[in-house]
């Protein structure tokens, strides 16, 4: 219960930074889908879970090498993103937006239950331990450091894709005005499909990094799903830098709150902060008052 500014506090802060990288990566795919299709995939964290189980299955049960298993996992989740869009989202695209959110809630239940049926409720782990690095009496696991670096690289890669490629430009254009772009000859249906695939692929990438750090179980989505939504909204839609800053703030609340009090209070403070910020700045931390 002590919260002195000692070495443990510093360790918590640095671990928060490492966690923030992962959260920012998780928020990235959701942010893209949210910004372009204007749909909240409330089952986004469950897609990550699907990816984690897929990697676990290919690596531990089938016995493929880890990189191949991860690639397969990414492809599966990207496919899942496309299927989700075609089967579930497309029929409700023209209905009130809240229906789109709720319909993916049904998918959330389904995926959780399907995972329980396929893999049981036990905690699974791929058992890859990379050791840890110690620095001035503080310990950081390599898994977390690699995750952080990879997350930064992926964020940068997506940024390049959206800025430098033709499809990326089309995606950004649709996210700015989805009604005008069809008149300019852009097939929004196709853009939505590509966006869903990329969104799913990003969830798959996040899953690759998550399996290095966390145990896999059917309810894991509930652990961080809400955090990811909060980061998306706090950062402002389509604002990737904002998403990054929001991820850092939320992660600091969780790790510092967790080390000073108890884990659940760290989360509770983060949720409270989110609600207050929504009231003060409904368009996100860096949103303009439009």
């Amino acid at each position, binding site marked *: 219960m002590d919260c002195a500014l000692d070495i443990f506090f510093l360790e918590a802060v640095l671990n928060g930074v490492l966690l923030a990288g992962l959260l920012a990566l998780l928020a990235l795919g959701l942010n893209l889908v949210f910004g372009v299709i204007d749909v909240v995939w409330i089952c986004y964290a469950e897609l990550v879970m699907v990816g984690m189980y897929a990697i676990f299955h290919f690596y531990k049960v089938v016995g493929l090498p880890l990189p191949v298993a991860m690639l397969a996992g990414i492809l599966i989740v990207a496919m899942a993103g496309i299927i989700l869009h075609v089967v579930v989202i497309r*029929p409700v695209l023209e209905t009130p937006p809240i229906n789109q*959110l*709720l319909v993916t809630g049904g998918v*959330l239940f389904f995926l959780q239950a399907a995972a*329980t049926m396929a893999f*049981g409720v036990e905690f699974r782990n791929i058992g890859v331990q990379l050791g840890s690095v110690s620095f001035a009496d503080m310990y950081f696991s390599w898994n977390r450091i690699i995750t952080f670096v990879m997350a930064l690289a992926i964020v940068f890669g997506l940024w390049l894709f959206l800025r430098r490629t033709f499809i990326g430009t089309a995606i950004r254009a649709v996210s700015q005005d989805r009604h005008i772009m069809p008149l300019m000859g852009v097939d929004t249906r196709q853009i939505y499909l590509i966006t869903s695939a990329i969104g799913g692929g990003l969830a798959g990438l996040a899953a690759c990094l998550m399996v290095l750090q966390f145990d896999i179980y059917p309810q894991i989505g509930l652990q961080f799903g*809400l955090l990811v939504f909060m980061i998306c909204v706090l950062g402002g839609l389509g604002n990737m830098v904002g998403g990054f800053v929001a991820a850092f703030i939320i992660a600091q609340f969780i790790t510092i709150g967790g080390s000073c009090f108890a884990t*659940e209070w760290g989360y509770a403070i983060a949720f409270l902060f989110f*609600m207050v910020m929504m*009231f003060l700045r409904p368009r996100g931390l860096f949103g303009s008052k439009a």
Partner: protein
Amino acid sequence: MTKPRFHPGYAIGLAGLIALPFVVTALFPSSEKYYLHLAIQVLLWAFIYTGWSLMGRFGLTSLGHGAFTGVGAYVTVLLWNYAGLTPLIGIPLAVLLAAALGLIVGYPCFRQRITGHYFALLTLALAEFVRLCIIGLRDLTGGSLGTQPQRYGNGISLYAVQFEPDRTLAYFIALATWVIGLYIWHRVDRSMDRYALEAASQDEDAASSVGIDVTREKLKITALSSAMCAFGGAMFGQYQMYIGPDTIAGLGVSLNIVFAAIAGGVYVMLGPTFGAFFTQMLAETLRVSIQGSEALKSWLGSSALALDSAIYGALLVFFIIYMPKGIVGTFLEWVEKRKSGP
């Protein structure tokens, strides 16, 4: 077109429900407790779902009503266990507190015009916040293991509002609660506030330009809806004689409320009730048939319990895509069409 003030069908239905415990006892003398337990659960959840639908039907899709059921149940039980305050006072206090919570969160929300996705995500955060507070205060609340109201005497008492051992009594209490819920729905349905809120849900600017105080109307319905959910949560805790952060609060409960109400239909009076009936029966039928079937058990093992959630989730997707008005709403629409058709 004037609708009859009181349809005779309602009187027959109510009479049937009053007779139900006696019929059940006569038909299944050995297992009447089980059937009554199911009926009580359906009625209490129906009350909670109806309370949610008061907001849900006006486009205020809250994913945070688990916060209110949680506050209702926990405040009541904690006051009884630690302060010895009778739930006769404790429940009204809990209900007031939940309504106040609804107003505190609602006011800035409605002033800032947070609607749709954002309103849903914000209320989701509220539900989780309350659940985490319950777990965090584990010295008082028993943390994630939950807690029990202290049994008073033989477990049947007006002073302690405990009625669990006598299922027939519990049934009538649940039935009365449910009827009150429907009456509140009916009153709202007939009020001017309904038209104001419907207008606001279509176009807020247009509604306020004709003199509707949108924030005020939304706050009124929020207070009413959260109060109902808190009362339902409190009664549920008193009936179950157990409350846990995941059974009466949090994300899971919130989502169940929303989905069951939508499956039944939020725009008609009996929609949420049917949603409660439908979801409870689905879960129970699947559970019993899995328990009874050796083949299913050996195929799925212990994870067979997840089968009902899988079917439930798939059905929800189906309902929202093809029947956004819910089962009862779609049925009534079909009846209307047949009447007015050739």
